[in-house]
């Protein structure tokens, strides 16, 4: 029963325990990739490395046995930096976006592949709910959005990007037309209140999310009717008044209160607003320096200065979003800001984190051309990009939208939420492009009835090789080549269906990344 020290804690552990075992007993987090509990260590990924005092190199926690008096550092800067490097090196040879690029590019990070999948199946209501989680005004945005997401679409390199914006608009229009439009679930009243200054896209978005979180919300604007630039700066041909009014009405139905004829410094200062409510969100388009009423809120020539992550201003409890920060061209950015400000304000008031507004860490495969995009074409129909038969103002028909949505290549990773490499990347703040250079090639083997093998995502950890050997598979999988060119493959260039007959699912379940995936996860 050796006694040792880890991160300053003295512990006694059973004989033969590894540093990793000991850390788990003490509930100290050590990331692992190639480690499979209950099996001998592979010691290949080095993500679990620790510093043991007196030893001139890092040791893998999974294979280092605790000895009496050992002093282990698991959280020092040097250990964290080295782990980050190990992760970044693995990422530099990891082919696959965790998050589909369209979703990454979208300022509101709408889960576009999910929307497309549900739309293709005709589950329009569910698809619409996916949209509304990130974009509270989709019918409006469906008409004014700059379609940034479509520039990120992988299919653009093949035969034209997905018509994402038009699809989203279809869903929103379809929802409004049902006569029973979707209203998001709302938390019970929190007893807190927020003043939102500005009823443009940022303010409307903030109000929408504040209501879902159960906070009372008054939206002030100097104009007569809410909508800001959407109402007063957008052509009616592009955005019909009815669409605008219908979607704003939904926010009002959720309980947001609109007050017109209000201007900071005239009716009230920020300080005075703050006396009436718990937090303030400044979302009026023009908040450049000059003008009164902003005491305690630092501003520059562009607009209000904020913490980029929380959007809180220099005045505690006061947040800012959209055009208040800097002149914005795109309503979608204002919408995204509104959500962040609402979440931050909520956390400020309640101490509870309402959830992430961005999809989290993602590898970037980077730009692909017509040739390199080919491996992605395994999903999606072969139809070319649909255009609405009745013209753009008419939008898609049901048949058109389903045909369009089924073109989606679903290029995000099917196991992004369970991937160990991604979790470690997130935890260690890894920069996916810190080490860029030559990479392996894409490879995709779906010959097996139960699993797919996406070899571009293999980290050569060796887990499946071991499972196949233990399972006495006739061909199995093995390593070929060496060094940078080490690959996991079925011998004699055979297909996966030949290689793994009995242990395929076990391999997929143990794979730390999306290289081996159950078909049911797709």
């Amino acid at each position, binding site marked *: 029963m050796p006694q040792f020290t880890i991160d300053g804690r003295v512990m006694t552990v059973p004989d033969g325990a590894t540093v990793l075992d000991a850390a788990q007993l003490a509930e100290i987090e050590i990331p692992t990739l190639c480690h499979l509990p209950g099996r001998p260590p592979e010691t290949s990924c080095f993500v679990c490395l620790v510093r043991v005092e007196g030893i001139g190199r890092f040791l893998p926690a999974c294979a280092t046995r605790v000895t009496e008096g050992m002093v282990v550092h698991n959280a020092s800067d040097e250990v964290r930096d080295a782990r980050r490097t190990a992760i970044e090196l693995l990422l530099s040879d990891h082919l696959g976006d965790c998050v589909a690029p369209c979703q990454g590019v979208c300022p509101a990070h709408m889960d576009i592949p999910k929307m497309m999948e549900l739309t293709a199946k005709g589950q329009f209501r569910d698809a619409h709910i996916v949209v509304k989680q990130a974009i509270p005004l989709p019918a409006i945005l469906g008409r004014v959005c700059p379609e940034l997401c479509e520039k990120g679409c992988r299919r653009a390199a093949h035969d034209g990007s997905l018509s994402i914006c038009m699809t989203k608009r279809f869903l929103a229009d379809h929802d409004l037309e049902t006569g029973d439009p979707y209203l998001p679930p709302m938390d019970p009243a929190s007893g807190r209140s927020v003043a939102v200054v500005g009823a443009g896209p940022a303010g409307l978005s903030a109000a929408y999310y504040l209501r879902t979180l159960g906070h009372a919300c008054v939206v002030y604007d100097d104009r007569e009717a809410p909508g800001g630039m959407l109402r007063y700066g957008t052509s009616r041909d592009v955005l019909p008044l009815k669409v605008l009014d219908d979607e704003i009405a939904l926010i009002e139905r959720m309980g947001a209160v609109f007050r017109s004829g209000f201007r900071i410094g005239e009716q009230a200062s920020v300080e005075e607003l703050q006396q009436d409510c718990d937090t303030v969100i400044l979302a009026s388009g023009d908040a450049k320096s000059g003008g009164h009423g902003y005491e305690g809120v630092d501003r520059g020539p562009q607009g209000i200065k904020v913490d980029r992550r929380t959007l809180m201003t220099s005045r505690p409890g006061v947040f800012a979003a959209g055009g208040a920060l800097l002149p914005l061209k795109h309503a979608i950015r204002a919408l995204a800001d509104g959500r962040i400000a609402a979440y931050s304000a909520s956390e400020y008031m309640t101490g509870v984190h309402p959830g992430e507004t961005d999809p989290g860490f993602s590898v970037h495969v980077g730009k692909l051309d017509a040739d390199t995009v080919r491996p992605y074409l395994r999903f999606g129909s072969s139809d070319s990009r649909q255009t609405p038969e009745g013209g753009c103002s008419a939008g898609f028909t049901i048949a058109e939208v389903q045909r369009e949505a089924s073109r989606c290549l679903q290029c995000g990773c099917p196991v992004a939420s369970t991937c160990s490499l991604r979790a470690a990347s997130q935890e260690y703040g890894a920069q996916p492009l810190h080490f860029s250079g030559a990479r392996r090639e894409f490879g995709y083997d779906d010959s097996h009835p139960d699993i797919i093998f996406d070899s571009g995502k293999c980290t050569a950890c060796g887990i499946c090789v071991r499972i196949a*050997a233990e399972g006495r598979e006739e061909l199995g999988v093995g390593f070929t080549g060496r060094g940078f060119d080490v690959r996991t493959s079925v011998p004699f260039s055979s297909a996966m269906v030949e290689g793994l007959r009995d242990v395929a699912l076990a391999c997929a379940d143990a794979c730390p990344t999306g290289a081996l995936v159950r078909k049911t996860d797709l």
Partner: protein
Amino acid sequence: MIRQLLERRRAATAPKPGKPPPPDPSEFVLQLIQRTGGAPSALIPILQAIQKEYRYLPEEALKQVCASTEITAADLMGAATFYSQFRLAPVGEHMVSVCHGTACHVKGAEQVDDAIRRRLRLAEGADTDEAKLFTVQEVACVGCCTLAPVVQIDGLTYGYMSTDTVGEALDDFLMLQRRGGTAPTSVDHGVAPVGEVRLALDSCCIAGGTMRVKEAVEKAIADLRASAIVRGISCSGLCHQIPLVEVAVPGKETVTYVRFDPKDAEALVRRHFKPGRITDRLRMAATGLVDRALTDETWQPVTRYAMDTRDPVLCGYMGPQKRIAMEHAGEHPPLDIDAYIARGGFKALDRCLTDLSPDEVIAEVRDSGLRGRGGAGFPTGIKWEKVRAASGSPKYIICNGDEGDPGAFMDRMLLESFPFRVLEGLAIAAYAVGANDAVMYVRAEYPYAVDRIRKAIALCEERGFLGSGMMQGRFALKVSVMEGAGAFVCGEETALIASIEGRRGVPTLRPPYPSESGLWGKPTSINNVETYALAPWIINQGAKAFAAIGTEKSKGTKVFALAGKVRHGGLIEVPMGVTIRDIVERIGGGTPEGTTFKAVQIGGPSGGCLPASLADTPIDYDALASVGAIMGSGGLVVLDDRTCMVDVARFFLSFTQAESCGKCTFCRLGTKRMLEILNRICEGQGRSGDLQKLEVLSGQVKQGSLCGLGQTAPNPVLTGLRYFREEYEAHFEGRCPAGVCKELISYVVTDACVGCTICSQQCPVDAIPMRPFAMHVINDELCTRCDVCRRGCPENAIVIQDRITPRATH
């Protein structure tokens, strides 16, 4: 001639008559397995045998192996693709192997490689010419560093290659082929009736032309019916003087000739050995040969080469040396067991078995201060003690002859020249640790060494120095030979064990150390060739005598392969504690005329580049480590002012990167990213922050790798950044101060040009328009920096400058 031949080849599609068709792969494998057995450990020998038969590994044969042995498909393909010896696709009729060792690299191997590819008209990315006559491959060091740059065509080695002699070598090879080949033959060990002509027949002497000399001398002896024989002897270490010929006539002083020309063979025989009969003399007289032999004038060509040991150069070369591992170098044929016995061979082993207990042997070795000569310098006595004390049986002993450092050939030379001494040391160690089974693991790239050690084992068994009833039944040791299949990482002990067991040469975490759990999980002692070669001397002369040589913590001698930009390269053995300067300047005679000594690369890819300013650092494990280098296995490459330190770092890293087994993330991907950064820097494309990134990553790769390969791979880069940072920085400004990095230099014609047009004729890419009697101009855009024009210019009118045209940006 090559081109004609290639064309003739293209025309002839019918297979060569007379060559038996290769056997059916399945049949062949079934028969093979009868001999080798089907255990997993037979995998590598099986693959080697298949490749020997088919020159590659046919899939049908591999599948047959899986079907009829215990070897799994995954293990088989894993090994077949791991070791660089194995090829999975058919190759041309002859292999052209361009050595990319350190010495070859600094002397222009890349340009030679390019020239061969141009000559064979290989398309980009292709390795075999259209007629399937030659396949060109890049190979790790073949251990003939003093002849750099070196190219091997099948079994024949061509040294001192240059871009303009590539054609000659290929032509010569084809000529020998048509003549029926001159495969090196084994050498007669008989006793000279009157006298003998001795030639060293190790790999590099053979490559240096000694076989030609041997043939010429044998022919001269036969033609003249002289009473003499030709004998092969061990390497003398005087590699810069080869071919070396020694004439020994009983009762007379032995005469040595250096850099001997085969043309002079007849004159040599006439001088030392009386022609057999008068009629021959008359016949010769008729042809005027006797006259030539009898006038002093005609002797000039031979005597001019005679080596005088009072020659200051040679005194310098031998002076600071001390030979223990290489004792009696050049005195007797390597496989003459009686000569070895006559010089005290096997006395040490006998003494161990007679007078000393295993513990006493270990104590002797421990007290001698001997540390492992493979590189890391672990005390040998302590290692033996651990194996002896370990529980578990049987115990094994392994000789690590997988010398893979580019620029190192000590182990090859010891195995080729002193096989009995190595075996005696091995037997002493086996007795000390209590092992009755030994494995000699020798690189397959060293065919002569493998052959000699096999023969030496057979001779020892025959004479009772090895085997079950050895030494009058006082001990038993079975020694087997395993050929490595081309993986530098197998020099690491756990990877080497994996390789013997028939697996990919992938290291495992230590502890457990092989001394507790090694081959087949049993206690195993692994030592380097040189370590074993020193053991008999220690037993014979005593620990005190050995410990009296060297420094406080580094005892005895160390063998180095001295090569690179040095006048007298060769195999040297020096007492620990001599300085690098002693080696480079006194032994090596300094750098070539007109250049200055800039640095030494010591310890190969795991070592570092030390600047001339640190040349007074002694050869001592700890002193070398303190300046960022390592003792290593003994590669010592001298670099002059025409060597780019960034390029050298890149060279070593490209080696270690290619040799990484690919297990640990830091080594597999980190070395690749480091190499990419170095490539950028060498091309003048370095990005801001690259040096810092390189430095940080180097430190993490060193600390985050399981085995010695990854832990030391960054050393050449780190010492480069430590001692030659300004040279790195110059590359960021677009300059290569040494004039080496192709992207940063231009070839320029100076006004010394007389308009002879030679450069224009020789330029392989037509970058120099022909302008008779006028100054020539090189088109910088077309120029590939192949160096042909500069070498060929009779007026030395072509110089290398900083690049004159803008670089293409990526």
